[in-house]
Each structure stands twice: as C-alpha cells, then as structure tokens.
C-alpha cells in the first residue's frame, strides 16, 4: 500500500526539527531515507509510527490519514522497527514476536491458534523457526534484529518502517537482514546510514538535510558526487558496482 508524507513539520522543545517534508514509497517499493546525523530521519519515521505527533502535515497510508485512525487501527497498517533493543525481562523469542499481535487484541485476550500460526510463520520467514523458546536477550545482535523484524511481520502491516535496522550489525548480518527485507516485497520506508547499502536495496531515495528533503528519486539519480559533497561534506566518486551494477560510492577517506 502506498505511503505518502505531506508537508510534515515536527516541533520538539519549541524547535522545528523537520519541516516541509514530502516523501513517498509507492506500493511494494522500498524507499530509503538517507542523510547525515541529526538531519531528521528518525524524527520523520517516529511520526509515521505515531511516537511523535506532527505539528503540521499528514501521513497517508493508502490514502487514509493515519492520525484519523485509532492507534490500534493504524498499528495494523504500519509496523515499526525502532532503534530500541529492549532490556532483559526474560522474554522468550516467541513472546517478543507475539507482541506483533497487540493491535489485534482486546484487553484480557490471550493468543489463539491463529496467532500462534502467524507467529510461527513470521519466525520462519526470518529463518528462525526453531528459536521460539530461546531467551530474546541471549541472542546475538543479528538474531535479535531478525526477531524484531519477525515481530513487525506478525503485525501483518501494509507498510514496514525501520529506523537504521542494520546498526551495530556486522557486514554479513547486514546483508542477511537487507535481503530478508527485499524478499518481503512489502512497502517499506527505512533510514540507513550506509549509502552503498541504500543504493543497492532501495527503489527510491529521499535525502534529508537539516530537516528538509533536498533530493528524491532513484538512487542512481540522487547519489551524485555533488550531492555527497554538499549534504554529507565528503569527497566521493560514484562508480558502477563490479558485481551488481548498482551505484557504488567510493569515499575519499583521506578527506
């Protein structure tokens, strides 16, 4: 389902953090938000999953303003994977994934057979079928992130929103997680630090700079040496990836 953000402005502690943000992910597309630290990527995503309230503007999913829906209803359309990793409360992997059923459940309701099936399917789709009984906090960083993705999938959303999902993962686990995302074929909006990962994963990129979108389009069109110099303040060449043909950004680490 298509997601569109229209003229979003967010004010935090009296300061406008992002303003005039317009961006989209078409149905089935993976759209990436890139930009330097503090450019407002997380803020934009937080308004999508309703952690923050927009000062102005709308978030439309399939044409419906999310704010017009009850919180549980909008959580059935948008599932989020924020940058939180949880603390040690002896939760099993299954319990964490079952949290994805929260927006479908009334007070006092337990998990029924259908929920159990959804949870099992979500775990299977991230390659962790046998892990339901393991303790979440005992998993490796890569496994944890996959469990959290499974939790988001158990929410059965129209749109997935992920904030830096590959943070703190080693390169193999980064590749693994991104290919899982690609395999979902679901409308996805995510922020990424790694521009090369963004260039290869995303159908569309939105570049944020100081709280505003400064460029949008196909990775190939957006990621130019000029933009990288202006927005990120780095010297880089953009070449063709010898294996995949995607744009490959070669940074000049000597400055």
């Amino acid at each position: 389902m298509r997601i569109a953000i229209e003229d979003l402005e967010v004010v935090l502690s009296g300061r406008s953090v992002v303003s005039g943000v317009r961006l989209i992910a078409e149905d089935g597309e993976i759209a990436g938000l890139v930009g330097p630290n503090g450019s407002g990527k997380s803020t934009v995503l937080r308004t999508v999953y309703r952690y923050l309230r927009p000062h102005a503007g709308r978030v439309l999913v399939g044409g419906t303003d999310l704010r017009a829906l009850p919180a549980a209803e909008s959580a059935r359309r948008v599932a989020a994977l924020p940058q939180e990793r949880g603390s040690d409360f002896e939760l099993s992997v299954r319990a964490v994934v079952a949290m994805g059923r929260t927006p479908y459940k009334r007070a006092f309701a337990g998990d029924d057979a259908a929920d159990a099936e959804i949870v099992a399917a979500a775990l299977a789709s991230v390659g962790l079928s046998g892990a339901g009984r393991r303790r979440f906090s005992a998993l490796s960083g890569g496994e944890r992130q996959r469990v959290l993705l499974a939790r988001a999938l158990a929410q059965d959303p129209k749109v997935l929103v992920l904030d830096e999902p590959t943070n703190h993962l080693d390169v193999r686990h980064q590749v693994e997680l991104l290919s899982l995302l690609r395999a979902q074929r679901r409308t996805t909006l995510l922020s990424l630090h790694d521009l090369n990962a963004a260039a290869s994963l995303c159908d569309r990129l939105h570049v944020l700079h100081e709280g505003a979108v400064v460029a949008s389009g196909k990775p190939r069109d957006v990621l130019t040496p000029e933009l990288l110099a202006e927005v990120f303040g780095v010297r880089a060449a953009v070449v063709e990836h010898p294996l995949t043909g995607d744009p490959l950004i070669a940074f000049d680490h000597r400055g």
Partner: protein
Amino acid sequence: MAAVADEARAAREPRPVPVAVALSVALLAALVASVCLGSSRVPPGDVWSAVVRGVTGEAPVPGTHDLIVWRLRVPRALLAAVVGAGLGLVGTAAQALVRNPLADPYLLGISSGASLGAVAAIVLGAGTGGLFGLGLPAAAFAGALASFALVWTLARRGGGFSPLRLVLAGVGIGQFLSGFTHYLVLQAGDDQQTRGVLFWLMGSLGGAEWSALAVPAAAVALGLAALLARARALDAMLMGDETAAGLGVDVPRLRREMFVVTSVLTGVLVSVSGAIGFVGLMVPHVCRLVVGGAHRRLLPVAALFGAVLLVVVDLVARTALPDQELPVGVVTALVGAPTLLYLLDRRLERD
C-alpha cells in the same frame, strides 16, 4: 557454561498453569502451617473445627483454641497472603513502569509518605485514635496519597513521565519525607512509642483483624484485574516506548494509569502492614525466571508466589525467637538481600 545453562533453560517452555497450581497448593499448606504454629501449637484438627465454627458464625467454644485461631491467626495469615500477593503485583508493575527489572515498588516514594503518615499518627496523635481522628491505616494512606501527588507533579513536567523522571522524583520525595519521619521518631514520647514506630516502619502484620482485610483484598483483586487488562501493552513497553507506540499503545496514558495503580495499591498495602521490603523486588524477578517475562502469565504467578512467600516469612517472624516477634521486614531483608545479591551476581555473570 552460561551457554549450556541457557540452552537448558531455553528447552524448558515455561508452563504457567502447573506453576500456578503448585503455588496454590503451597499457599494452602503455608496458610495451614501459619495458623497451626506459633506461641501455642494448635493441632490441624482443632484449626478445622475452629474455622468451621468461625465461618458458620457459631460462638467460640471456651477452653479451645477458637479465639486464637479465628480472631488472631486466620486473619493474620490471610492478611500476609493478601499483602504478599499485592507486593508481588506492585513490584511487577513498577518494574515494567520504569523498565528496570531491579526496581522496587517503594522506589516511587509512596511508602515514605505512608510511613510519615503512620508515624505522625502514632507520635502526634497517640491515645486519641490517630492524627485528626484518623486511624493509623487511614493516616498512612493519606500520607501515601500526599506523596503520590508530589511525585506526580514533579514527574509529569514536560508531559513525559519518563522512567528516569519517575525514579528521580520518587527517590527525591522519598528521601525528603523520610527526613520528617526520622525527626518525628526522635520526638516520640517514650520507649514504648518508639518501639511501636520502629516496628511499624520495618513492616508488621501484627495489626491483622477481620475488619482490616476487606480493603487490601479488594485493592489487590482490582489491581490484578487492572494490570491483566493491560498485560499486552505492558509487554510492549518492556521493549521500549517507541516500540510500544508502534504497536498502537498510548504510552503516556499507560504510564499514567500504571503510576496510579501502583501508587494506590502500594499505599493500601503499606497502610495495613508498613513498608515490607524486598518482596516486591524479589518476587517478580524469581517468577520471571520460571514462567518468563510476558505479563499475562507473570502477574498471576507473581501474586501467588508473593502470597506464599509472605505467609512463610510471617510464620518465621513469629516463631524464630522464643519470646519475641520479629518485624516482618527484618526477616524479608535477611532472606531477601542475599537472594538479591545472588540474582545480581548471576545476572552480571550472564551479561
């Protein structure tokens, strides 16, 4: 080693129903033991006939243990169970509220207010039935509400009720009120009064009588229902506020509700038993190890285990020394502190 232990634990799917059944049996056994044992021993058969006469409203038979059993021991054992269950619940809730498995229900400053109210009633209103004509429990509860209002006002600034704000406000207000309490203790008229105050501060179930049972029992039942209704939202909050918001939970509202539930329940419990330490901290922790952290199963198990624990602890407090009763808080601290250290040690090793 840690990995092996973890695998072993992982293989054991926590089953809450057998655990709850076992705890219920244990609770019944603990209650019976608690009524039988004490300064004078009562055979279980006599307990049974005394309870039957008590329940049917028959007059106590002179020369039997009827009075001890029905007037003293049964209400006391039941109060211990109710308070223990409540402390288990309130500990579980407080730990979810501030997202820290080592939090304590008293962290929110409520017990300090209750203690101040109780001590003020004993010291200033001795012999007149308490401060402003209130009984001791009412004075303690008024103190709990007052400190709740103070903590609420401080913690809500910025609209947030963030875990850190709650803890800071709770600890700050708690210390502030404890200062007054200590001053009042020094002003106590005589040794007898000082003893009474200290005994209350360390937690005691000595005031148990039938008429004092209804309010805490109702509060614990309502508290359990209120928490169970929010069990899924509480689970989500364990992962973080953003995750919970993404799952459709109204996090600020949930925090406000949880703060009210934990505060009122803590206030009721402290007003009937004083601030009994360690139970609220230890019970959820132990129960999580057995049935996992998901609240739908954790909350009832924590209530049951808290009840069993406090009935046993009170029995020990009454019978450990030949001619003297120990404050319950002394026993929970002596048992609880080493348990806590063990749990912490295990936890640090695991991480």
